[in-house]
C-alpha cells in the first residue's frame, strides 16, 4: 500500500511577479518526497483557499514579496476558517519585516521563512507540524 504523502499548496498571492523563491521551495519539497500543488502567480485569497480545499492539502505555502502580507494573510486565514480548514497549516515566505513576524504567528501562521532560509529548515518545519495519522 502506498504511504501517505504530505500535500502542500504553493501559491503566490498578490501582484508581485517574483516567483523564483516559490519555485525553489516547490522543488525542494518535491525532492523531500512531498506532493506540491503549484498554482502560480497572482492568486487571490479566494483562489488559494478554494484550491487548498479541493486538493485537500496539509499545508498552504505562501510567498509574498510585495509587502501586502498584513492584508493578504489575515484574509486567507479568515477564509480558511470559513471553509473549516482548521487543520491546514500555513507557512509564509518572502519579505516579511521582523516586527510583523510575531503578529502573523499570533494570527495562526505556523512558520515564517525570510530570504536566506535553508530549504531544509522549511522541510523539517512542515514535517514537524503535519501529523500523519
Amino acid at each position, binding site marked *: *500500500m*502506498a504511504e*501517505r*504523502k504530505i*500535500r502542500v499548496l504553493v501559491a503566490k498571492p498578490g501582484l508581485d511577479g517574483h516567483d523564483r523563491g516559490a519555485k525553489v521551495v*516547490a*522543488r525542494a*519539497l*518535491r*525532492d*523531500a*518526497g*512531498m*506532493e*506540491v*500543488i*503549484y*498554482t*502560480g502567480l497572482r*492568486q*487571490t485569497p*479566494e*483562489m488559494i483557499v*478554494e*484550491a487548498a*480545499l*479541493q*486538493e*485537500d492539502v496539509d499545508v498552504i505555502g505562501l510567498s509574498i514579496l510585495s509587502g501586502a502580507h498584513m492584508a493578504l494573510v489575515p484574509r486567507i486565514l479568515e477564509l480558511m476558517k470559513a*471553509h*473549516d480548514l482548521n487543520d491546514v497549516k500555513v507557512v509564509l515566505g518572502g519579505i516579511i519585516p521582523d516586527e510583523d513576524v510575531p503578529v502573523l504567528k499570533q494570527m495562526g501562521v505556523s512558520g515564517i521563512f525570510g530570504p536566506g532560509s535553508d530549504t531544509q529548515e522549511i522541510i523539517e518545519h512542515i514535517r514537524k507540524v503535519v501529523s500523519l495519522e
Partner: protein
Amino acid sequence: MSDVATLPPIVTAIRESRRALARLLTRIENHAAASELAALYPFGGKAHLIGVTGAPGTGKSSLVNWMAKAYRAEGKTVSILAVDPTSPFSGGAVLGDRIRMRDLHGDSGVFIRSMATRGNLGGIARTTKDMIRALDAAGFDIVLIETVGAGQSEVEIASAAQTVIVVEAPGLGDDVQAIKAGILEIADILVVNKADNPGVESTLRALRAALDLGHRVERVMHHGKLMDVPAVPVIGEDSAWQTPILQTIATNGTGVSELLTKIAEHRAYLQESGVQRLRERASISAEIEERLRDLLLARLIERVGAAHVQATIERVLRREIDPNSAAQALLADSG
C-alpha cells in the same frame, strides 16, 4: 436514486460538500476507502468520462481549461482530474496543471483535483479509476481526466475513460513517429493544438496518413489495435467511428466548440453501437483480474511467509534454481 433517503451517507456527503469529496479523494489515493467505494459504486455510471492525453507541452491543460469553460456554458458540471508524474527518486511531485486552469476559479460547478502517478507508469495512477468513480457518483456531468505528458506507451487512459482525446502539436515528430504503436491508436478524437503555429499542415498530413494507413493495414477496424493495450482487449468493435482530426488553439479557445460537438457525437456512437458496453466489459474484466492477482499474491505471501519468499529469492540469486522453478515451488508450498 430518485429517492434521496435511500442514498448512502457517503454519496449524500460528496454531493453536498466539496470538502467531503476532497477528503474522500485523499482516502482513495491512500488506499483507505474500500468500504466507501463499495457504497458509492452503484450511484455512478452517469458522467461522461473524457480522457485527454498527449506529449508534454502540447497544451493539454490549456485545452482542458477551455473544454471545462465550454461545458459550463452548456450548463454542465465539470470535474477535472489532472495527473502529473511522481519523481522516481524522491517520491515527491510538483503538480502544476492548475496554473493553466485559473479561469475556472470561483465557479461552484467546477472541481479540480491534481494527483501524482505515485510510481505507476501507464500515464495515470493506480487509484485514478477509483477517483473517477467518486467524481462520477458525486454527480458531475463531465469528468475530464488529464494524463501525464504521454508518449508512446502511456495508454491506460483508454480503459479509464470513455472518449479519449489525443493532443498533438506541430513540430513534435515526423511521419514515422505517427505510425509507431502507442497513443495514436487509442485516440477516439485527434486534436492538433497550437494550430496557429508553423508546420501545422505537415503535422495534419502525417496524422491523416497514419490513420489511413491504419485503416488499410487493419482492413476492418482501426480500434482493433486496441487489443494490444493490456487493459482494454476490445473484441468485435466495429469500424463505424472514424477518428476525426480537429484543430484547436488552446490559448484563445479556437476550435473548442467543434471539439465538444465531436465528443458528443462519439458518446452517441458509443451508446448506439453498443461499443461502450463492450469496452466496459473488457475494462472491468481486466480490472478484476488485476485486483485478483494482487489479492492472490498477498494471500500466497501470507501463507508461505515473507521470510520463505526471501530465502527463495536468495536461492535464485545463488543460481541454485531458476526463477520459474522458484515461483512453482512457492506456489506448491502455499497449497
